[in-house]
């Protein structure tokens, strides 16, 4: 395989009983999930709240047990192994630092439970606090630290035990935007340094794209797509993923014809749109073409190249958002799109053509910039 599997989920399903305790009114939180998380990778479980990502993480940690299916960590089946016998450590969403203990005691907790010698505990606590850039904070109490500092202590408390897998449950959720961005980079750097497998749960797609080696997008208990950040963003395999990650224009239509990998889709009943797909599709099939707003250009003239789409449109609204300008354009009565252009070139430059409101223009994009979705 070329890599070792750190965490293997094989057909894992988790059902929670209903409020009355009857299985009938229960909820399927995780539905037949199979994942192979590679040793040493930064793996994210991404999805909206209630998609089952936290339950999946809690099952790896041992706080919940699968209803069916198996979880193994480095080849060892976990079964009903309790959390305190698993070589995983968790960074909790609210940090869960012990409020009655000092920072040093918090960090030392896991090692004390494992009966590590006092001298080594002291040395490793100091090292761990150094690593998260909080040296000398040992004697303080958690409530004397800021949110970001507490977050780093939680990280130190988990990493100091040198776990096989570090589990992180939306650890940056409570921080403000700026600190969150800093911590994202810091976490990623730290993960590369220590080389420990990170399993990271988040609902923030940008966070997942920034840090992860691979991402699994979850929805309603199922993994919809698994892949690298580029793969997930550039080649979403379904409408949900395309919609959840970033921003997308959806053009619904039917397949008109296919020549090799080039498919012509009739959008809104009359607009032919070119898109590429490896699947063979019968004409007449309902499909959706997904195009990212930043991959579309507005042009004063029609693009002549054969592999370009060029749709005549009316600019309805121009929204300036600093680094970008967003154009809301109408192609027909039923079809509209959002086009986003970076404000890199001055508007007087012919390449930096910026359409005026209510002006007719052409929305242009390459056929391989679109993505053909079947649902």
């Amino acid at each position, binding site marked *: 395989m070329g890599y070792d599997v750190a965490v293997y989920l094989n057909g894992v399903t988790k059902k929670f009983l209903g*409020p009355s305790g009857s299985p009938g009114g229960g909820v399927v939180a995780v539905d037949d999930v199979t994942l192979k998380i590679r040793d040493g990778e930064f793996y994210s479980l991404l999805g909206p709240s209630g998609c089952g990502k936290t339950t999946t993480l809690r099952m790896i*940690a*041992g*706080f919940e047990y699968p209803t069916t299916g198996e979880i193994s960590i480095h080849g060892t089946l976990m079964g009903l192994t*309790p*959390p*305190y*016998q698993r070589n*995983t*450590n*968790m960074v*909790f*969403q*609210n940090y*869960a*630092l*012990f*409020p*009655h203990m000092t920072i040093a005691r918090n960090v030392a*907790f*896991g090692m004390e*439970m*494992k009966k590590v010698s006092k001298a080594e505990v002291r040395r490793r606590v100091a090292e761990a606090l150094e690593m998260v850039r909080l040296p000398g904070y040992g004697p303080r109490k958690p409530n004397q630290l800021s949110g970001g500092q507490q977050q780093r202590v939680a990280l130190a*408390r*988990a990493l100091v*035990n040198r776990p096989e897998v570090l589990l992180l449950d939306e650890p940056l959720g409570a921080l403000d935007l700026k600190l969150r961005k800093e911590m994202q980079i810091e976490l990623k750097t730290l993960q590369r340094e220590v080389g420990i497998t990170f399993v990271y749960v988040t609902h923030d797609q940008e966070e997942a794209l920034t840090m992860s080696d691979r991402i699994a997008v979850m929805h309603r208990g199922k993994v919809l797509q698994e892949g690298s950040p580029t793969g997930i963003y550039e080649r979403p395999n379904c409408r949900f993923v395309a919609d959840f990650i970033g921003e997308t224009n959806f053009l619904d239509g039917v397949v008109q014809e296919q020549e090799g990998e080039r498919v012509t889709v009739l959008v809104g009943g009359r607009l032919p749109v070119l898109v590429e797909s490896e699947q063979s599709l019968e004409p007449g099939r309902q499909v959706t073409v997904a195009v990212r707003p930043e991959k579309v250009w507005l042009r004063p003239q029609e693009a002549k190249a054969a592999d370009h789409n060029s749709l005549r449109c009316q600019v309805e609204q121009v929204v300036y958002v600093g680094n970008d300008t967003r154009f809301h354009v109408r192609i027909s009565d039923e079809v509209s799109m959002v086009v986003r252009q970076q404000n890199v070139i001055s508007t007087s430059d012919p390449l930096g053509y910026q359409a005026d409101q209510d002006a007719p223009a052409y929305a242009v994009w390459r056929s391989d910039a679109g993505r053909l979705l079947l649902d």
Partner: protein
Amino acid sequence: MTEDTTTKGKQGVLDTIRRRPGLQTLLLIFPSLFWLVVFFVLPLLIVLVYSFLKRGPYGQIVWEFNLNNYARFLDPLYLKVFLRSFKIAGLTTLFCFLFGYPMAYWIATRSRRWRNTLLLLLMIPFWTNFLVRTYAWILILRDTGLINSALLSLGIINEPLPLFGTDLAITIGLVYGWFPDMVLPCYAAIERLDFSLVEAAQDLYANEFRSFLRVIFPLTLPGVIAGSILVFIPSLGAYVTPDLLGGAKTVMIGNVIQSQFLSVRDYPFGSAFSFVLMAIMLLATLLYFRVGARTA
């Protein structure tokens, strides 16, 4: 016109009050202050003064300052009463904790819907009059009572167990009487506990027992201490329970105080006894606040 002036007058009074925050405070605390001074501070002062006076031959108060009443505590008879009271109150607190904490934990970890029902069920027996409930224990514990007759008829024992009139009987009565006072503060503390901390402990290799010892118990300790104070103090000064279940012997501080005031008519000594009891309770409470402040 008269209506106008009265509204103006009312307005004037309100304005005066609004302009003077000191007056506002005084008005707000006056009712409770009045109550405390007249019915608590003044009687307490009388008791304090009495404790330094002497008993006359017919039980009257002789105005002669002395410390003899306090010196009498060195009498082994009274020291024994103190020790016994402490033992009974201490055991009562211990048993209340041993039975009450698990119960509080169990209730606090039920679903929100169940918790209030369970707390209500805990309280229902205590709607019955305290005396009636204590008398019920006589019927259970005496030689011809429920326990003894059951054990005798089953042939497990040949003679009735000496339950009634013992320290054990008093302890049972007190545990029963003050049980909710232990459960409720423990429940409040456990209910507030952030259970993700327990998960964190288990994630950091602490098994169930160690996570209880290192995380759950220390974090709910303020509730345990509050409950202990609420049980220990009334148990130490208990009067009705030892009087009924102790078999008409003077066994606890409460009984001594009662007999000094009502039978012996030695008000000064009774007052001194009351004050020593209060001093002990004050000490216990201060200790609670110190420990409480440390854990918080």
